[in-house]
């Protein structure tokens, strides 16, 4: 057989921005193509908003139900994508050797994590747009400082990503799947998303309000419903979770 030159070596890594863009686009497509993930990221938050916003099942305290629910559901959207969705997807990528194979590609690990973060943020933008549209249709009238809202959502994303990746990088994929869904359900109920935290006994209340989901939903509610400025206490709680979660993930994440 004679050399055709088809496979003649000409190695090289693509420019970093191109690699990150391609990786982020692929990760986003994988996420949007996954039916179970869409249930978590889109259907459940939208259902919570529509159901509890129109039917008086849960006592949401003073004012319109939607003014209480919309900030909570935005927090839920961040939880579903940055934590649950990312944990499950990454857990199975680890299990099926996707992370292992990418580990010998020209894409550096930090660039892979950057791409994952971009994909989470793109998904969240789509979620927020959809949920805000539904809430506005239900008569929601948001207040407050958009910069504070953006900062809360970003810190919340960082906190949940750290915890999600910690779980995905240390547990078996099946365990991650079960645990991530369980945590999602528990936080949906006990994180001030659809049930006001002051409905819980005082002792429980003081612990629950330190959860990242509670800080996020409470902070968003302070701004969007009550027109507060910067909810520093909630931002502080989220920042601590972000540092702890991302730090532990960086320390303990196993790629195989």
């Amino acid at each position, binding site marked *: 057989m004679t050399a055709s030159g*088809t496979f003649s*070596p000409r190695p090289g890594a693509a420019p970093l921005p191109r690699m990150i863009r391609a990786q982020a686009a*692929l990760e986003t497509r994988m996420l949007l193509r996954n039916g179970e993930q869409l249930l978590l990221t889109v259907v459940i938050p939208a259902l919570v908003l529509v159901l509890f916003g129109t039917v008086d099942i849960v006592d949401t305290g003073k004012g319109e139900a939607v003014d209480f629910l919309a900030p909570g559901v935005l927090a839920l959207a961040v939880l579903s994508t940055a934590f649950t969705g990312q944990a499950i997807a990454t857990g199975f990528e680890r299990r099926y050797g996707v992370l292992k194979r990418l580990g010998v590609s020209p894409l550096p690990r930090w660039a892979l994590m950057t791409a994952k973060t971009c994909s989470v943020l793109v998904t969240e933008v789509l979620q927020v747009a959809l949920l805000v549209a539904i809430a506005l249709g239900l008569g929601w009238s948001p207040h407050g400082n958009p910069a504070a809202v953006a900062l809360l959502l970003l810190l919340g994303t960082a906190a949940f990503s750290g915890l999600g990746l910690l779980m995905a990088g240390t547990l078996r994929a099946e365990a991650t799947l079960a645990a991530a869904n369980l945590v999602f359900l528990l936080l949906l109920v006990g994180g001030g998303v659809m049930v006001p935290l002051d409905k819980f006994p005082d002792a429980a209340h003081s612990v629950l309000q330190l959860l990242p989901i509670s800080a996020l939903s409470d902070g968003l509610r302070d701004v969007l419903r009550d027109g507060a400025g910067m909810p520093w206490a909630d931002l502080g709680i989220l920042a601590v979770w972000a540092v702890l979660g991302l730090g532990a993930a960086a320390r303990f994440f196993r790629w195989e």
Partner: protein
Amino acid sequence: MITGGRFLALPPRPVPALRRLPGMREEPAVEVVGLVKRYGTKTAVDGLDLSVARGTVTAVLGPNGAGKTTTIETCEGYRRPDAGRVRVLGLDPIADAARLRPRIGVMLQSGGVYAGARAEEMLRHTAALHAHPLDVDMLIERFGLGSCGRTTYRRLSGGQQQRLAMAMAVVGRPELVFLDEPTAGLDPQARRATWDLVRDLRDDGVTVVLTTHHMDEAEQLSDDVAIIDGGTVIAQGSPEELCRGGAENTLRFTGRPALDLRSLLKALPSDSAAAELTPGSYRISGTVDPQLLATVTSWCAQNGVMPDRISVERHTLEDVFLELTGKELRS
């Protein structure tokens, strides 16, 4: 290709397919010296030496658990050696990982693809991570992935998954490709197609390191074979050299079980050996020439034995392996 003035920075095309000449001093593509790798108390690789010349196909051959994958994965930068020295294209696979990764192609033993990704999508994505990737349409054609390009990975057959993984290993135009059991689970036709691809890679100047536990694959494909057992290389050389290393030839026949071979051995030259491999199946090894054949058949006639299926065989790698390790390869 010509975008944003970057065309000026394109490196020159390499000289195609420079074959190794005898006596030419060139740094090996892979150099492993005294590699030790332990998992807990189990020693997977135990003082292994391996050298792979550039532009060759080297088969790392051995039974399951011999240390093949651990060795390959150490070269790929996945495992940190407990002792020894590993250089791939002159680089340390861990310390120089960022410089090494774009230059190698890797086919893992299994997996490596998003379950929900389509075959063509994944190949295009892998291409996008490289500066000068091969034409993806051409690869899809060459690897027979046209009919399943839109199929998600989890729905591909085992053979299609293998071909996609190999296409992903070569799409970035690497200098060196590691293929971990590239034909495991393939039907004979698909195996041959993969062999052709490996030969084309070599002919175009790509160094190929593959693991296999198929003797015929190693014999057919490789310029060099490293036989691994118990975590060390027990023999390395071209298939011809390895086969010459043992007895020159083998004569086999079948007959009545439990023949007394001592009288036969007395009649044969002193470098010969005779053994009953399984009841009624005999192997004579040594310098098998017409004289030896005549001696064996006349001994059979004296003993009233009809030597059925008598055959003279070239010594195979299978025999070499059996001799070296005392066990069958595919156990």
